């Protein structure tokens, strides 16, 4: 047994027919008002359909917005990857550290090389006189001797008996 509300809803939707329809319409206290209400309900239904259509459009737009955002994200990812690829390992701080480390290694090697070299050079530290002679005709009694002053690192070739010369020979 349908209640009045159920029958009213069915009547508004145009789902009552035959004897049920005539009985229901006969039961209505004001049929004109009920018809007006029915027309209003139909308008409302049409309006809702339209609104639902608009709502579907909004969803479309929403999805398309989401799609656009996704596409933009995807297009952003490769550019970030490109940036990552473009930036090299040689950043400024790393370049500085590498330069400093290279200089340090160079200095260490230099010190080692100099240390290794010094003992060999010690024997050749001072100037060496290989030979010396004076003209026996000009200075028959001349002698030569040589000595090294290690403290002052000076090598001296000492001659004795060379012919003495007048002061005029000191001229520039």
């Amino acid at each position, binding site marked *: 047994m349908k209640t009045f509300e159920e029958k009213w809803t069915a009547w508004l939707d145009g789902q009552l027919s035959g004897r049920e329809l005539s009985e229901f319409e006969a039961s209505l206290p004001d049929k004109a008002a009920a018809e007006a209400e029915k027309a209003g309900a139909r308008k409302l239904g049409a309006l809702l359909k339209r609104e639902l259509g608009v709502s579907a459009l909004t969803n479309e737009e929403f999805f398309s917005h989401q799609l656009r955002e996704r596409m933009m994200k995807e297009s952003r990812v490769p550019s970030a990857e490109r940036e990552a690829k473009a930036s090299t390992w040689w950043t400024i701080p790393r370049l500085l550290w590498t330069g400093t480390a290279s200089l340090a290694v160079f200095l260490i090697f230099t010190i080692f090389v100099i240390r290794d070299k010094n003992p060999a050079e010690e024997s050749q530290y001072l*100037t060496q006189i290989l030979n010396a002679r*004076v003209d026996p005709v000009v200075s028959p009694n001349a002698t030569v001797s040589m000595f090294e*002053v290690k403290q002052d690192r000076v090598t*001296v070739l000492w001659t004795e008996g060379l012919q003495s*010369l007048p002061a005029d020979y*000191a*001229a520039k």
Partner: protein
Amino acid sequence: MGRSLAFLIPFVSLIAGAVSALQGAETVWSGLVIAENVAQPQPIPPELTRIEGSLKKFFGYNQFQVIGQSQKTLKTGQEDWLATSKFFGLHVDSQGESAAGYVLSLKLYKEKELLLETDAKLSKRSPLVIKGPQVGSGQLLLVLVIQ
């Protein structure tokens, strides 16, 4: 700041390398020096400053004056040159370079007369002083220094 430092470090390294490369060419100063004892001695020439103590100690003079000199930059180590005064001439013939210095052949002339001849291996850190003849009250000295 960081970027300029990054440029500065290689730049300094290059300069250091260039300087060490230039150190290969050395200059030999050769001088004819008259050593004397005088009441008011003149200041010692700058080329002799580093051996002033040795000169005064060994030769016993208080004044050293340069009467002739030559400054030769050696590039191949095979160069020769002459340091002259009015009457004396010192001919230096460099016959090669070794790690320790240069092999030099030295000849002292009085005008055209050869007074003294010697061969020496001149060390880069050790000057050579040769006692020459007595000149007046002083003494002729020959000095060779790698600068």
